[in-house]
């Protein structure tokens, strides 16, 4: 079963995204912050990570940087709200599959996730 990790500090996002993807026979993990995300990634090696950029504890970009430093070549899709050009550039430099802007609907996300998991 494909593994998906959703990193977001909003509990509603974690809960309902998990519900949604579970119904599609995907093994869903959730993390509410960067540290938890790094732990899950190193343990579970998910096939895809949906990573929120702006989080309280450590930012999504910082998580990404630490992932690359630890040579964990996991596929990452960044989820962003109101970030500037610079953040996007930085994320691209660290190698992300893409960038989705909030708010978006689950059907859009489903297409992206299924495409990535099947590739």
């Amino acid at each position, binding site marked *: 079963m494909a593994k998906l990790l959703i990193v977001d500090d*909003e509990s509603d*996002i974690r809960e*309902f995204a998990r519900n*949604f993807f579970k119904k599609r026979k995907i093994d869903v993990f959730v993390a509410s912050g960067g540290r938890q995300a790094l732990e899950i990634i190193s343990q579970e090696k998910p096939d895809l990570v949906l990573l929120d950029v702006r989080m309280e504890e450590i930012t999504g970009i910082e998580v990404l940087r630490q992932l690359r430093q630890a040579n964990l070549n996991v596929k990452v899709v960044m989820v962003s709200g*109101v970030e500037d050009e610079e953040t996007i550039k930085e994320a691209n430099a660290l190698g992300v599959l893409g960038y989705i802007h909030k708010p978006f609907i689950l059907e859009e996300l489903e297409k992206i996730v299924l495409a990535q998991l099947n590739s």
Partner: protein
Amino acid sequence: MDIRVAISNTAIFIAVYSFVLGIPVWIGFKFLGKGAWLLPIGLMALFATLGPFIYLYVQKQAEDKLLQEQRRYQATLRQASAGMGKIKDLKKLLNMIVYVLTHAIQIEHASIYIHDKEKKQYFLGAIKRKSGHKQFLDKISENSSLIRYLLDDKNLVIYEEFKQKSQDFKGLTLGQVEEDISSLDGELIAPIFIEGSIIAIIVMGKKESGKIYTQDDISVFGILANQTALAIENAKFYEDMKLTQEQLFKAEKMATIGTMADGLSHQINNRFHALGFIAGDALDTIHLNQKEALSSEKSKEVMAELERALVRVQENVTQGGEIVQGLLKYTRKGETGFAAVDVDAVFKAALEMTQFKIKTQQLKIIREYDVATIPKIKANFTQVQEVFFNLIDNGYDAMMQRKDERREPDYQPTLIVRVFKEDGYVEIIFEDNGVGVKDEDMSKMFTPFFTTKLSSKKGTGLGLYVIRKIIEENHGGRVEMVSKYMHGTQMKLRLPIAIG
């Protein structure tokens, strides 16, 4: 008096009186012989010496008696003139002028008309009527004969004297001017000039005693008119100032909101995002279960899932509403009144607002006070909230700047808030361990538009200026700033305790 003048006056007095009194003494001695002449001549000498003093004394008494009434009100008017400059509220000032005039001079009525440049009218600013029933005019046109006459004549007009003039005055029919005065029921009209234009007109009615206005009255009104002119200008200036200041306050608030926009849009966006996910998952559940008839077990399960989703929708809507409410609380003008306010409640409200602008998680905020022991302050909640907001925000910026510049490994940005009672006041201290202020900048800290903040985007340079205005002018408190470069800053506020 100069000693030489005193000696010379005495010498003249002795010389003149020796001569004036010496002649009768010499004649009496020479022609009348000793005895009989000495008493009358002696008395005459005595009375002649006292005479001028008695004359001056009696004259002064008589004058005082006759002019007592007039002097009394003139003194009142002089006093009032001197006090007028202190009144900053135009409406109050005008009311005071008409009140003092009617009561001091004992006249039937007094009113004052103020020039409105845009509308080209003089509008009634204040009126006091003790007796008489005549209706008053609420405005006088700039183009009326009376105004044109006053502009040219530049003097007070006394109706009684004016009626006696019959000839025409520079193309104006005096009859029309007379009509204007009479429609105002005015006995004395005093134009108030500033730089050649009439800014106000005082209209006074008849004296209740029936007496006419004297030349002496007019000279007192001259002083009054000058003082009134200055006082009105002063009050108008102050009103303009207040308006400018309000705009300045608003500009500061708007700039703050600008810097909060990022945080606010993030939060609101997150609510929409969550709503989208909740609705998406619920729809998905419906779609997946639509195709076949559901067992009662399954339908219960679906219903529970949908219920959960709708509860979360409501929750998110409430949160979104709170964000907007919080913003509105900050932007709206706020209650103008003062009330007994709980310092801790204001602090919490301010902290709530700062969430939109700064990451409070990066700070350690220590509240070193016991909510139960602090008395309430006499304050305007919204204004003090703004002050606290600014102080937390300033502390945050200072600490983040130190963190970025110094990169000290053990640095923990800490904001300590202390509140305690002292000298009948509530003392509130915000202490941070940020960059602090350099000595050379210290004197400029409260100057409007001065900012030491790194990016000009971050600071308006109005924060401390507005804080001082709010605390010292609006609340009668005090603001003090103690700072040491690279050590931190202490902002000390002192606010009055609410009574009762």
